[in-house]
């Protein structure tokens, strides 16, 4: 079976993504630029005081963004000016070097590629082959992945499985990826101790570039993930898709739902505000009232008898290490089983 590569799909996906990104960055940059109060307007005497400028340069003012070129707004010398301006987004020229590199870099690559292609045809005296085909042939001649890949890709999908209610599980997986990406972004700034957790969230909300956006996405995608998970399970339950031979698909799906709820439970504590603290206290109390193993469960969850610093640390470790690894494992198993057995045919 030959793989038919439809270039239009790739071009459509890429252009849509790029357009969305450009619009997103353009709009948000405008909003941020307008929201910043204009406090650095030139004021006072029109003539330049050169001795003051020399003083500023001696202090290292040329390392700071030009907009803050005044003695009053200078950060203390022990603060790293670059970190300051990059994180707070005061450096408006942040995108200029990037755009310059992309523009001239692309032009340079096209030039180099043209030279290489012309000289290669001239030296080898054979017609030029597209780079994509060269690459696939190069890889295939070594690792022979073309055949298994095409069997994998050409496995037919039944037409009934293109109805919208079959994509709920896929959306859950997509939201899990979103959670992974935004979670990594948040973990760059979050500090899991009772003294610093709250203020680090404040830092994310007010200082970090797009920090409040990232936190908003993480928050709502978490809720969406639970809703999609439940929707997917209801669909499977109503259609009886858990029956022979798909019992273990259902069992792994159940475990994935529990892991998702575990994500919610552990993630809720991390902001370390009153709501988080007392919600966790209540939730772990419920676990503590299970007969026989209740006390053990309570002490395991709280690392002691109270919700305290150790609890925060444990929930953080569970949230960013244990649960994601377990979820990835069960998700892989879930997908492989769905793939192997196929989608249940409705009556």
């Amino acid at each position, binding site marked *: 079976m030959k793989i038919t590569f*439809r270039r239009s*799909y790739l071009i459509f996906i890429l252009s*849509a*993504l790029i357009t969305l990104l450009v619009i*997103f960055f353009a709009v*948000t940059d405008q909003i*941020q630029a307008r929201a910043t109060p204009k406090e650095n307007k030139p004021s006072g005497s029109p003539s330049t005081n050169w001795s003051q400028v020399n003083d500023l340069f001696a202090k290292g003012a040329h390392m700071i963004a030009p907009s803050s070129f005044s003695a009053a707004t200078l950060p203390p010398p022990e603060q790293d000016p670059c970190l300051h301006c990059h994180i707070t987004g005061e450096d408006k020229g942040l995108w200029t070097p990037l755009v310059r590199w992309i523009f001239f870099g692309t032009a340079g690559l096209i030039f180099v590629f043209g030279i290489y292609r012309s000289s290669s045809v001239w030296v080898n005296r054979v017609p030029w082959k597209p780079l994509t085909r060269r690459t696939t042939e190069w890889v295939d001649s070594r690792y022979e992945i073309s055949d298994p890949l095409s069997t*994998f*890709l*050409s496995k*037919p*999908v*039944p037409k009934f499985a*293109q109805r919208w209610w079959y*994509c709920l599980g896929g959306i859950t997986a*997509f939201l899990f990826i979103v959670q992974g990406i935004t979670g990594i972004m948040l973990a760059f700034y979050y500090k899991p101790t009772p003294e610093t957790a*709250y203020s680090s*969230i404040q830092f994310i909300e007010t200082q970090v570039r*797009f920090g*409040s*956006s*990232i*936190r*908003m*996405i993480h928050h709502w*995608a978490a*809720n969406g993930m*639970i809703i999609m998970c439940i929707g997917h399970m*209801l669909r499977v*339950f*109503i259609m*009886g898709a*858990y*029956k*022979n031979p*798909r*019992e273990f698909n*259902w069992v792994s799906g*159940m*475990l994935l739902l*529990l892991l998702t709820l575990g994500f919610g439970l552990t993630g809720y504590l991390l*902001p*370390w*505000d*009153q709501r*988080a*603290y*007392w*919600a966790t*206290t*209540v939730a772990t109390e*419920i*676990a503590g*009232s*299970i007969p026989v193993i209740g006390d053990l469960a309570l002490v395991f969850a709280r690392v002691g008898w109270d919700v*305290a610093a150790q609890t925060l640390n444990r929930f953080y470790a569970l949230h960013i290490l244990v649960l994601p690894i377990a979820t990835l494992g069960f998700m892989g198993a879930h997908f492989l089983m769905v793939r192997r*057995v*196929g989608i249940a045919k*409705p*009556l």
Partner: protein
Amino acid sequence: MPDIETDSSEESVPFYPDHVGKEAKVVIGFTGLVLLIGLAGIFFSVGLGEPADPLNTPAHVKPEWYFLALYQLLKYISKTAGAVLPVIAVIVLTIWPFIDRKPDQSSKNYKRRAILVAITMLVLIIMTIWGEVS
């Protein structure tokens, strides 16, 4: 094993590129939705309450919305029952395929299970709303 055989070509489409292309559209749509939420995040905030204070219990303590139904139930039954019930429910749900093993004969089974699901979800939603307003 029942219905594991692949379908004939009239009733199915190739995984790649037909199905992947369709999935890509869904992914692009949801990516746009996620970016929209991010855009909203510039104007609004998820919010951050008062810093945690172990010595000061606030008047209304509530868990996340997906535990709210259970939390509401706990107000009216004993704590032990409230802790054991969800555990039993989860265990029964997990081994449900081994309890309900009879293959479906007609779409009547769908209807029965749909009614069961509707009643359960209705109870859960009412409990959640009740927990939210109380």
